[in-house]
Each structure stands twice: as C-alpha cells, then as structure tokens.
C-alpha cells in the first residue's frame, strides 16, 4: 500500500460512496492550504524558471530577449553537459543500491540484539546531520594521497592507494563512497522502523512451519514484509542521489576537468557563477524531464512486484 499511484477504485474501504459532495468539499478544504503553498512557493517559481529557459536572461542584466530553443540546442552540443549527465547516472547507480543494502544491513545488525541499540543508531545517523561544508576538509584529509590515513593504511598493506579526489579516474568513485556515508544512516532508520513493525508472532509461526535458520527467516518473513518499506526507501534514495550537489560543490567543484560534474552542479554554476540564467534554466528543464521519466518507469516496473497490504 505504499505504491505511488493506486487507482481510486482500489483505495481503502468500500463504504465511501455516500455523501460524495460533502466529502469532496471537505477534502478540498483540507488540502487547500497545502495547495496554496505549493502553487506559490514551488509551482509558480518553477514555471517562471521554465519560461526563462527560452530567453537569454543573465543575472543582473537590465533586459532579456526571447531566444526560442537556442539554449537547448547549445546544451545538446555541450560536451560538459553530456559528461554531467553521465556522472550523475553513475553516482545514482552506485550509491542507491549500496546505501540501501548498507542501511538494511545496519538495521538488521542493530535490531539483532538488545545491547547498544540507541548508541549505534545515533552513531550511524550522525553523517546525516553533517554540514558538508565543514566535513569537506575532513574528507580532503582522509583521502589525501600522501598524508591521508586511508592511503597510509593501504600502504601498510603494501597497496599504493589512488589519488582519490584528485584524479579524474577515481574522483566519482570517491564521491560515491562519501555519498553512501551520508545516506546510509537515513535508510537505516527507515528500515529500523520497518523491522520493529514486524510482529513476533510471524516469526513464531514460521518456526512452527519448520523455518529455522536465520537466513531462511529473513527470506520468508522479513524481506517480504519489508517490501513496501523498501520501495519507499528506494524512491527516496534515488531522488536524493539524483539531487547530489553539496559534496561536489565543496570537495571538487566538478573537477578535475569535469570528471565529477553533476547535473545540479552544472545547473547551479551556469546560473549563479557564470550568471547565465537562461542556460541554467534550460538545464533545469532537461533535468526535470529526465527525472520525471525515471520516476514513472520506476513506479510502473516496481508497482506490481511489491504489494503487501
């Protein structure tokens, strides 16, 4: 029941036919404040930006001109934009599964006993509350190829560590690692909640049915019941990964040579650093279209699989 677009006819209890008008009116009134806020703070500004995508507006310029699809044409030829797209896709493809599986594993570990639960929950949630601007220096140091502890540890094992953040070959991997670090705690908490909701009786019943080992308990009871949680976590994690920005802005600024450039960072720098608002708006439009398509695909594909009411 946590899927995205359930047909109205399948929703909740059947006895909702009566008082159709009164109910509809009440519903609209209840959602009205949210709708107003949404329209004012999100919808209209976004539409304004979409409109700007068809102009040559520069920040601070006294006037702007309509240029049709010129910005989009330029976008298609822009080697930087294509790289940006690819890097973002890479980041999402790596951080999403790892942070979901990692979050689940941590949740299982923590819930697997009674000792230290509150402590470990806090420990793994800490990265979520971190301010990347401050953490950036810590990560610069951690991953420093010559004076950093990561490579020092590798050296002790006889391995020559890469130039994590400075080489265009390894920079996206490093950012993905940091991205997982940031996200795992968030997912862990969501899974924790899902796990604590699974009733003990189900495990007892399973045991009666001959399911004994931890692994089969997981597969027959835990995993199916976590389905809807997992779907929620998947959606949220993908969206958060798509919107990666802070770690790029503070650690690499898209470098070296655009090796770590991501969509939102490109959008930001074009508009706020290079002052080319029209072009930045065009990137925004492409970004929104891409993610909407992605979300639609995801709900269509997974909607059927996971359903446990």
């Amino acid at each position, binding site marked *: 029941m946590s899927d995205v677009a359930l047909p109205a006819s399948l929703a909740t209890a059947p006895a909702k036919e009566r008082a159709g008008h009164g109910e509809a009116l009440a519903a609209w*009134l209840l*959602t009205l404040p949210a*709708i107003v806020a949404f329209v004012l703070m999100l919808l209209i*500004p976004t539409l304004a930006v979409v409109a700007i995508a068809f102009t040559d507006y520069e920040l601070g310029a006294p006037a702007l001109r309509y240029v049709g699809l010129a910005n989009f044409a330029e976008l298609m030829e822009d080697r930087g934009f294509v790289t940006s797209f690819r890097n973002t896709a890479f980041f999402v493809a790596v951080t999403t599964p790892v942070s979901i599986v990692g979050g689940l594993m941590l949740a299982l570990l923590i819930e697997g006993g009674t000792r230290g639960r509150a402590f470990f929950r806090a420990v793994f949630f*800490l990265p979520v509350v971190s301010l990347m601007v401050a953490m950036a*220096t*810590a990560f610069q140091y951690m991953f420093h190829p010559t004076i950093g502890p990561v490579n020092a540890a590798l050296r002790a094992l006889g391995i020559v560590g890469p130039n994590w953040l400075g080489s265009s070959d390894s920079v996206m991997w490093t950012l993905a690692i940091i991205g997982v670090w940031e996200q795992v705690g968030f997912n862990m908490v969501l899974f924790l909640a899902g796990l604590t909701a699974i009733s003990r009786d189900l495990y007892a019943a399973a045991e009666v049915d001959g399911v004994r080992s931890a692994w089969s308990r997981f597969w027959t009871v*835990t995993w199916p019941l976590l389905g809807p949680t997992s779907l929620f976590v998947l959606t949220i994690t993908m969206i958060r990964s798509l919107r990666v920005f802070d770690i790029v802005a503070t650690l690499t600024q898209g470098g070296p040579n655009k090796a770590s450039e991501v969509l939102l960072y490109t959008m930001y720098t074009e508009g706020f650093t290079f002052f080319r608002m029209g072009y930045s708006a065009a990137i*925004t439009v492409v970004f929104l279209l891409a993610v909407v398509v992605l979300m639609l695909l995801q709900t269509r594909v997974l909607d059927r699989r996971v359903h446990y009411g």
Partner: protein
Amino acid sequence: MNPGSQMPGSHDRSLAADLPRLALLSVLGLLFLMPYIWMVSVSLKPLDEVWRASMSLIPETFAIERNYGRVFREVPIGRYLLNGAIVCFGILVFQLAFALPAGYAMAKLNFRGRETLFAFVMLGLLIPAHVPAIPLYIAFAQTGILNTYAALIAPSTISVFAIFMFRQFFRAMPDELIHAARMDGLGEWSIVWRIIVPNAWPAATAFAIFSVVAHWNDLFWPLIAVSGKGELATPALGVIYFRTEEAGDDFGALMAAATITTIPLVAAFLLAQRRFIEGITMTGLKG
C-alpha cells in the same frame, strides 16, 4: 545475523554470543565516525599541529580557547543558533499544519482529482532547491518581506515529503476510528482536529527530525534571503565564515564552529530517538 527485533532467543543472549555482532557494529561505527573524530580533534588543536605529517588525535597543546574563543568572539554564534531554532521551529509548524490535513484527505477521503494531486506531490519531490530561488527572491523583495524570519521560513512551509509520509501513515490507520467519529456526527474538520492530529503525533515526531536536520544546515536559501546586516543569519553561515579560498581556512576555528553547530542536532536526535522510531513504525511503511 538475526532479522527482526525480539527474535526468539535474541533478547536473552549472553554477552559472549552477542560479541560478534557488537564487534562488527563497533568497527563499522568507528569507520563512520572517523571524519567526526578528526573534526573534533582539529577543533582542539592549534593551527600548526593540524597538518603535521605524523597524525595524532590528541593535541600536544590544547587550543580550545583559541579556536572556540575565536568562534565566539568573531561570530555571534549564539544568535545564529537561536535563529536556527526559530526558523526550524517555524518551518516545522507550518509544514505540519499544511501536510497533516492534506495527507489525511488524500489517504482517507474519496474525491475526484485525488490522484492528480498526488502526482503533483511526487513532482514536487523532484524539484531541486535552487530552482525556485531567484523567482522567490524577486517576489519577496517586491513584497518587502526579505530579510525577515518570514522570508527564511516561507519557501519551506510546503514539504511534499511530509505529505507523502503522512499519506502513508493515515492509510495504515484503521477506518473504524473515523467511521465511529462520523457516526457520532463529527464533521471532517473536527475529525482532523480531535482524532487525526493526536494520533499522528508519532509520525510527526519522526518527520520533525528529518525536517530540522535539513533546514538547520541549509546554506543556500539563507544566503539569499538574509540580505541585510545579518542579524538573521543561520548556523551554517557561522561555519562558512571561516572558509576563505585564497588565504587558506582557519581550520581550527572552522572545525570548532562546525562542532558547535552540530551538537544541538545530535542532542535533539538522541532525545527524540525513541519517539522517532516508534513514529515511523506506525507510519505504516509496512503497508
């Protein structure tokens, strides 16, 4: 590894049997905390000890006065923390006020356009924060509310994530409760006020954590909305005060500022933890 809490036998485990699990968690925990440990260590060190080639966590000379002192002297950090609290609280209040009724309506009430509304909610989740910024800035400037708490709070009052979450939560709530209330002749509004809100408390606590964390650390919008003498600056602005590219950061003070602004969040999480887990449990993410 044992899935699920209160697994048969898991709560009476002896320390010895629990050791592998605790050991694994401790090792992982240490890895996760490394950046933080280093951050706090740097905040205690004088500048010339930070980059010594031989790494040591304990400072030779403690520079607490120098680093933390500099933060408190040069930046009205107490004021910034207060602003952070006011802004986050204000945002949370409005987010709940808008999302609770909306979530309920979309979960329990039957009306045409419900699915379209939900599609808009999902769309809203995808819009990055930078997108509405400039148009909102211009609009706020025209209406004269720039550089006020209102400007800091308003754009975040609509949280589509909250609506999403509360919709899930209310779907899991038994309908009988609401039927009974209707039988008693309560109108929709009273139902919301008298039944929904009190029952939504756990989910609201859960959401509150995510919301506060996100907005406490927000750098981008406050930089745009606080355009005057900076009395309304938020915690993150106090941290970037010490970042300068050309001349080199004052790492000790930077880490000290970061530590100071992170502590309230950690404290809040520790306090709210139990409520929080409870809250999400009942969000019906299980279905």
